[in-house]
């Protein structure tokens, strides 16, 4: 199979082609690995580790004629190359969270979301780079490597699920899983021109996904179409006895997509937040894309309604209280006793346990992780708790009520994803400016709702991907899928694979060599 043929296949194409005998799962695995070989190391650098052995094992299971094969082939992700953010455990693989702290860590078990994709027939290609412990919006805080935006190798892919989106946008895998605590699926998806979905909190089990902010974290899929993302969500959602926050809801994500594609969304009520269009720091091309999407939705017969989210402006501050406090607590488990960096521990000459902790954690965690742990430690300290942590949880109530009231009037809300398109490496230097990349995504995590980032073409100023965000009511994700599937049809010509692949395919014919990264 040619690489260009493979990268054009959707989840449904792969499943149907495999079942019709048009190609084998091994051919798909070969094509995916061939893309990874050509585009990853030294170019996009999305992967922290690849799993060709596991991929071929999964492919063989699909290709061997047996009762077991028939069962896996019937799975909704049959034959689909997938890769996982490196905070997700897959038994026998490294799970590093892009941190030196876990450089040696080998997963002794598999996360529920990962296991569910494999049970649905997906082919595991590897583990993907991220901001260390998901602390960041550019994947620059990874302890191991920079991942480059496949649309412009001098720019960041966004973060923290930067490796996940870059692998999908460059065609190396068909879908990937990411996690989203404050925008970590949606913002990078916007930067790389792919679809990224954070389901409502509780839809997907977090068992086996390394925790960052337990009241905010949610796992979700990244793909090149709304349909691919919907099918992947169908595969991973549902109640898991191993995660007490997971809920028994499956609205039938893919069915919602099909319904919207067939019946349209006439009469659907779409909320827009007027103050978002004038938010400080928002780029002209982002506003233009949003206005274009509003016009398209009107064209489809949807009704546009102004809604107000007066407390959303406090979401960023609430998030930088709640997130670090939960991270401080979650990261206390990295004590260098049960797991930790073997070399650092051997090197440290600590003569008592307290100094061992201090040295191992200072060596193992990068600067952003240390900042957030320190901040959380301070905010939870006696006396300070009542100034920040408790009020932040009260503000959370106000923000949640804003959304509840808005969703009494509308079915979904249309918003920007990020105030700007992908920035260059090192361009956003200080931590507080970096935190502003997530002003439109964070309120959703605070309230627990679902949100989807849909690419709507290239910005007229930057020439880089621009996206809009569709937000739904809590456990009303089906409405997001409907609106997204309908709106997606208004952009039939936009590319979901970065042009990087073209130059590569051309070079295979001896025409042009691929551009190399210069980060």
């Amino acid at each position, binding site marked *: 199979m040619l690489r260009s043929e493979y990268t054009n296949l959707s989840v449904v194409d792969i499943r149907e082609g495999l079942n019709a005998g048009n190609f084998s799962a091994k051919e798909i695995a070969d094509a995916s690995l061939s893309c990874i070989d050509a585009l990853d190391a030294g170019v996009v650098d999305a992967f922290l580790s690849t799993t060709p052995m596991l991929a071929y094992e999964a492919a063989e299971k699909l290709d061997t004629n047996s009762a077991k094969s028939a069962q896996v082939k019937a799975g909704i992700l049959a034959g689909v190359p997938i890769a996982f953010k490196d905070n997700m455990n897959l038994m026998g693989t490294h799970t590093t969270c892009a941190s030196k702290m876990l450089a040696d860590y080998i997963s002794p078990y598999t996360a529920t979301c990962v296991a569910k994709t494999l049970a649905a027939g997906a082919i595991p290609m590897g583990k993907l780079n991220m901001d260390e412990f998901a602390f960041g919006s550019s994947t620059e805080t990874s302890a191991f490597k920079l991942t480059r935006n496949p649309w412009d190798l001098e720019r960041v892919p966004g973060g923290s699920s930067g490796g996940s989106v870059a692998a999908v946008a460059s065609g190396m895998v068909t879908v990937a899983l990411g996690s989203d605590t404050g925008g970590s699926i949606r913002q990078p998806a916007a930067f790389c021109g792919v679809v990224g979905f954070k389901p409502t909190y509780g839809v997907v089990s977090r068992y086996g996904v390394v925790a960052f902010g337990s009241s905010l974290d949610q796992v979700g899929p990244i793909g090149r179409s709304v349909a691919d993302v919907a099918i992947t969500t169908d595969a991973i959602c549902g109640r898991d006895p191993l995660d007490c926050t997971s809920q028994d809801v499956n609205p039938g994500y893919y069915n919602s997509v099909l319904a919207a594609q067939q019946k349209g969304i006439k009469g659907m009520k779409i909320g827009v937040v007027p103050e978002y269009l004038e938010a400080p720091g928002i780029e002209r091309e982002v506003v233009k894309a949003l206005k274009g999407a509003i016009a398209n939705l009107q064209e489809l017969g949807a009704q546009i309604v102004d809604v107000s989210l007066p407390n959303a402006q406090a979401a960023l501050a609430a998030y*930088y209280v709640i997130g670090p406090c939960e991270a401080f607590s979650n990261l206390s488990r990295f004590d260098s006793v049960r797991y930790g960096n073997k070399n650092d521990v051997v090197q440290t000459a600590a003569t008592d346990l307290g100094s*061992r*902790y201090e040295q191992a*954690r200072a060596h193992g965690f990068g600067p952003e992780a240390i900042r957030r742990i*320190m901040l959380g*430690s301070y905010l939870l300290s006696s006396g300070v708790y009542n100034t*920040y942590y408790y*009020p932040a949880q*009260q503000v959370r109530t106000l923000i949640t009520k804003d959304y509840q009231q808005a969703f009494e009037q509308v079915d979904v809300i249309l918003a920007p994803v990020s105030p700007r398109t992908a920035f260059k490496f090192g361009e956003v230097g200080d931590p507080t400016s970096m935190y502003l990349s997530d002003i439109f995504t964070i309120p959703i995590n605070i309230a627990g709702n679902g949100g989807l980032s849909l690419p709507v073409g290239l910005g007229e100023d930057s020439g880089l991907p621009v996206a809009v965000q569709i937000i739904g009511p*809590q456990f009303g994700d089906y409405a997001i899928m409907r609106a997204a599937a309908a709106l997606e049809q208004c952009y039939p010509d936009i590319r979901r694979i970065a042009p990087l692949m073209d130059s590569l395919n051309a070079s295979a014919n001896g025409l042009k060599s691929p551009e190399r990264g210069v980060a």
Partner: protein
Amino acid sequence: MYLTENDVRGIATYARIGLADDEVKAMTIDLNNIIESLKPITEYDLTGVEPTFHPIAGLVNVMRDDIQIDGLAHNDAMQNAPSSADGQFRIPPILGDGGEA
């Protein structure tokens, strides 16, 4: 200025992170900037507003069926230990060399 360098040293000790002197200096600046950006939280009138500690309302005491589920095998649980001996995690003395107990 919310925090002095001395405060930051105290926080680092509590968070079990060993910071060098130059790191304390940079961390003090960063933390003060971040805390300044949290100001909106302190400016709200929140009288009578209940806190939301968890996004799913009404989730209390989620129980699973009382059936036996095997945990990790001993060896699997130990495989990531940086240092172990006789199937147990190995650590430096808790009281260090100066322990008099």
